């Protein structure tokens, strides 16, 4: 190999090494506190899971699917609460992660509307032991964007966010026509048969509940209200029947008392912001009695 070639590779390699070292140093010094921008809903979930792995264990944890993902933490009056629901994911993933932590929250709330999805073993592995979630290097481009976004939109306090959302209640429910989205959701639900997947997930939830309750946590199941059409769709009914057959005791369930006429599902499946806030209030009331 010619000397010129060797010099080229030395310069190239040294540049790489210096940049990696600089980034590693910056990560250790500044990196962990920064809220990174999320480009996908999965990213958003990962931010929450990162926080769960790093911060003190909260009193209440919610696990679930994208339905529960819409119940933003800032909607809750309960401050020591984390929502580990995964958009596009299974409640079992969140429950596994919680169960694998050395310390547990007082209450774990498990959404059981969507139980046909497989556990995300990669996420479970990554977040199962506290302290392992820290990356060695942060992502420099995302860090720059995160700093800029945080500077541009300074984070509001929990109280500010809560009062802003409370103002939503003074407005009437949305009159957005969602029938196209509802029809599509119902059609999709009618073509799926979630029996086998739901049975597997329900069995795993039962095992995890036993393990968590033996360690002192209380686990309650809940079902978020869906639009009337979707409640009667095939796969939703199958999943509901399976989970209620396995957990028939009423004290295993967290009851959500809301006026359905106030609720809207803008995209046919997920609660809109105002409706999510109403549901959260009901959960807040129930949780406050348990804490």
């Amino acid at each position, binding site marked *: *190999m010619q000397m010129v*070639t060797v*010099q*080229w*590779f030395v*310069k*190239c*390699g*040294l*540049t*790489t090494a210096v*940049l*990696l070292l600089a*980034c590693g140093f910056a990560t250790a010094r500044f990196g962990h506190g920064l809220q990174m*921008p999320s*480009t*996908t*809903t999965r*990213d958003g979930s990962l931010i929450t899971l990162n926080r769960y792995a790093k911060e003190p264990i909260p009193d209440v944890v919610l696990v679930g699917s994208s339905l529960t993902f819409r119940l933003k933490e800032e909607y809750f009056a309960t401050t020591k609460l984390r929502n580990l629901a995964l958009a596009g994911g299974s409640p079992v993933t969140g429950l596994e992660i919680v169960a694998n932590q050395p310390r547990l929250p007082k209450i774990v709330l498990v959404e059981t509307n969507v139980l046909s999805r497989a556990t995300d073993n990669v996420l479970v592995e990554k977040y199962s032991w506290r302290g392992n979630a820290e990356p060695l*290097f*942060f*992502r*420099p*481009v*995302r860090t*720059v*964007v995160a700093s*800029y*976004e945080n500077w541009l939109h300074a984070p509001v306090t929990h109280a500010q966010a809560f009062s802003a959302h409370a103002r939503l209640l003074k407005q009437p429910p*949305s009159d*957005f026509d*969602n029938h196209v*989205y509802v029809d*599509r959701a119902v059609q999709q639900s009618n073509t799926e048969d979630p029996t086998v997947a739901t049975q597997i997930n329900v069995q795993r939830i039962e095992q995890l509940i036993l393990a968590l309750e033996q360690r002192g946590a209380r686990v309650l199941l809940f079902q978020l209200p869906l639009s009337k059409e979707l409640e009667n769709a095939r796969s939703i009914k199958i999943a509901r029947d399976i989970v209620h057959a396995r957990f028939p005791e009423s004290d295993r369930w967290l009851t959500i008392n809301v006026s359905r006429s106030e609720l809207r599902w*803008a*995209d046919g499946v*997920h609660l*809109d*912001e105002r409706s999510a806030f109403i549901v959260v209030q009901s959960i807040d009331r129930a949780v406050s009695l348990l804490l």
Partner: protein
Amino acid sequence: MTFTSWQFGIFVAVVFGLYYLPAFRALQVQLLVVASLFFYGYGQPELLPLLAVAVFGTYLFVVLALRNRSIWLPMGIAFNLALLAFFKYKFLFVDTTSPALVGESPIDFLLSLPLPIGISFFVFHNISLLVDLTKQKDAPSLASVFLYIIFFPQLVSGPITRAGLFIPQIGPKFLADVQYVDAAKWILTGYFFKLYVANNLNEMTSYMSFPLYETLQTQDRWLLVFLYSYQIYADFFGYSAIAIGLAVLFGYRLTINFDLPYISKSFSEFWTRWHISLSSWLRTYLYIPLGGNQKGITRTYLNLMIVMGLGGLWHGAGLSYLMWGVLHGFLLVIERPLLGRLQSIDSTVVRTAQMCFVFLCVTVLWIFFKLPHFDHAIGYLTGMFVPSTSPNPPKLFYNLALLYSLPVIIQHFAPRALFERRLRGAEPFLYGAMAALMYLEAGPETAFIYFQF
């Protein structure tokens, strides 16, 4: 085994080490053939017999065509096209997931085989081999034919190097002749474009999938189409660059596949800059044999439409791919009478406007690639021209989109003289920074887009 896996890194290191050992000097071609078979069979061993049938079959037709070209050359081409048609287009006619297809086990077995990775590429290699080599007097060795068809850097997604360019390169290779810096530059650039640009943009363009795209705001639909345009370029250019760099390590030069396609000022120029090896192949083996532009204007237009339509279908059995090809053919036909007049106008404004128009059209047509289901593509396209009613649109970070697209923009628009002269001394530092950035800022792992073809 994908180019971005650690297994592939180990594979290349081992093959490279063995390849230049003096003990293997006489067996270099055979070693590369065995390595390529291992590479191909690593993920789909059940498809190795198909590859063997394709290579042995083509070799047989080459030998026969050397005796009687007029009979055996068309037979050889038909054999290869039949292979491609069977594996690529059977999905149009049969449900391959069905447990019992026709009731005959051997046929059921064949029908249930998945689409062999890279079949579109190695079939085109085979046809090039048949056409180019049967003009000569002597048949190449079986090992040379094998290497040309299945050489692992180009096996899965090209570049589709012509047999006449590749086979003469086969011969003893020496470690002292390896162009290390050249190889490193290609490989680093390729991985950087794939990991930093394409994989990160893929996260954003995942919102273009059905039904997710219905939640997008109108302006975000437009933004994502442009991001996808950058993504598909970065993805395929990245793959091609890695392939070229790997080939250099083993002493071979593959065809350059991209030459800054998004600065094209006409659609015909675009096709001399985008996927060059495919467009050259189509021109040499399809457009010219059809008569090219030598049989009158109407026939020229028809030939363009046929070539582009078939080029679209080559990518996949679907109306979206056909529409993509036909629309490109249509644009080529429309611009043909205007080309001379436009080229005669010496105005920067006009040239910039032409460039923007070509880029816009090419970009919008990528929707048919991103959404192979035709109804979904039309749905997306329609939504770009009507106000969004989505109650809960996702938030896209425009600054992040810009930062991930920047390498493509810089590559296309930065003056070449800047890099070739003034920044030449900074070149190793620039590549070192790219290596660091592609590691630190790599997006989530995704398959190369052209693997599906």
